[in-house]
């Protein structure tokens, strides 16, 4: 099963990379973030937590390419190390959202009936809350911290996956291959996870890319409110939160983390859209 999914995935990655310039740049950015997170200890010129009060809020110099923050820490090094909490948030939040949301959506859509009715109502209700409110409520119940933020984002994003996978399986379960699988006596479990799931992996993958970009934005927003990552974690959102009090003295400390978040989110969104266009040729047909 893995090779069945992995080989086409690699092929579409190659196709994507040869696509428009924006997509190749975006893919390079994401790859760069992965590499930086792996090699942060070797690439970063300074430690991300070493305090130097004599060199606080220095503007960019050849010594400190992006300047220093309110505790004299090197901003560039903090940004580089910040790719680690970033990837942690992306991977864990998207895994929580995709697995719970998809599971609920698939079961609810496949079996239908009263459970489906209740689940759909709950999804509708959750979708009436702006995601930030769900995240704020969860973080306040669990307390601040990066691990809790990840859970909060995972829960807030799970509704999208539940709705998407429910819609997808409603269409798939009318298909002939499902009927024939059931006719030869495959269990519901087998039909859902071995037959339907691989067939709807594409849209779910696209949704995961978008979920990744919103996870980054929500983590940054919650850290910016002081509810996310705690010092001295070099989270980009937390760096913004700490820099905003010194905004007039040292605007550079605020500009670069925000720019880093923007570029990263933009890259995930561009790749997501390219991926969707690749899988959904309907859109191009409308254009022509």
């Amino acid at each position, binding site marked *: 099963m893995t090779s069945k999914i992995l080989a086409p995935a690699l092929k579409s990655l190659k196709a994507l990379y040869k696509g428009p310039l924006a997509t190749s740049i975006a893919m390079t950015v994401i790859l760069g973030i992965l590499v930086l997170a792996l090699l942060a200890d070797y690439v970063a010129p300074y430690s991300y937590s070493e305090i130097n009060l004599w060199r606080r809020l220095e503007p960019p110099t050849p010594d400190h390419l992006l300047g220093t923050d309110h505790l004299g820490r090197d901003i560039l090094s903090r940004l580089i190390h910040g790719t680690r909490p970033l990837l942690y948030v992306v991977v864990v939040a998207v895994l929580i959202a995709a697995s719970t949301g998809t599971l609920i959506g698939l079961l609810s859509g496949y079996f239908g009936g009263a459970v489906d009715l209740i689940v759909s109502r*709950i999804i*509708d209700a959750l979708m*009436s809350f702006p995601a930030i*409110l769900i995240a704020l*409520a969860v973080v306040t119940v669990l*307390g601040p911290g990066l691990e809790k933020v990840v859970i909060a984002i995972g829960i807030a994003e799970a509704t999208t996956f539940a709705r998407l996978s429910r819609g997808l399986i409603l269409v798939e379960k009318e298909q002939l291959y499902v009927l024939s699988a059931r006719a030869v006596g495959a269990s519901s479990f087998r039909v859902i996870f071995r037959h339907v799931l691989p067939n709807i992996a594409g849209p779910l993958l696209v949704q995961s890319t978008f979920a990744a970009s919103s996870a980054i934005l929500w983590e940054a927003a919650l850290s910016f409110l002081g509810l996310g990552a705690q010092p001295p974690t070099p989270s980009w959102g937390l760096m913004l939160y700490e820099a905003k009090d010194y*905004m007039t003295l040292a*605007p550079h400390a605020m*500009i670069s983390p925000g720019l880093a978040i923007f570029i990263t989110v933009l890259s995930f969104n561009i790749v997501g859209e390219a991926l969707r266009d690749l899988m959904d040729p309907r859109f191009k047909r409308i254009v022509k």
Partner: protein
Amino acid sequence: MTHGYIAYRALLYVPTLFIILLITFSLVRLLPGDPITVMYGELGPPPEARRALEEKLGLDKPLAFQFLLYAYRIFTGDWGKSIYTGEPVIELVLRRFVATLELTAVSLVMASAIGIALAYIAVKRPNSLADRLVGIASVASYSIPVFWWGLILILIFSVNLKLLPPGGRGGLENLVLPSLTLAIVNFGLICRISRAAMLEVYSQDFVMAAKARGLSERRVILKYVMRNAAIAIVTLVGLRFGILMGGAVITETVFAYPGVGRMIVEGIFSRDYPIIFGGIVFVALVVMTVNLIIDLIYLALDPRVRIARS
């Protein structure tokens, strides 16, 4: 038939409402620390005063009873009082909501103007350079961290140019920066939706017929495509009202703007239960009501939907 369907759509919102109330009630009850400890510090008031307070705030009753009481009070407009200021929550929420409504309405108008204008440019020549640039601008729009963008605007227009106040509410000048922040962050979504809706209409026969009759591209888009796409655009934008409200929560915090979002954040930090309850329930109710209204308007405006469903 149609009336039955309208009633059915409206009825679907009843369980949604119940679940919204249940979620807000249980989430806030799960918060660590009870309000009395928060009010009086770690030592708390003497036991008899504590009991009297618990009775006054309804904290001594069983949870299920507290929930029913809560639901009953929501429907009768008795939303409790702020634990700190003693002000009735419903009055506070409504006053704050006026501010939020002002902000979201102004930014929604700005975002729609930018978004639809750009979509018009894109649709005129699909797949052209202009179309691609519009596409990039829209993705960029919803990739911007809203708090960062707000701070950048403050830095430029308040700190450096000293043109506009960095926050607060009062005159029109207080509204410019926060609404510009929200408009820039939201126009991309509207542009994307409008472009897709217009392209969908664009491929239909009556548009082809209009073109065949020799009408100019501009006229075809403005008179035929835009008009027919308008319903879809309004619906989709309306259904994303919750996302707009979410951005408003953070924008209000950045600009110290006294709206509902900032009220909820303040309430969470001080564990002012009635305020958090009131704020979250209110926002959810507003989003739900907007969804219902859009649902019904869509039904009323588009005969195709009406006939297909009934």
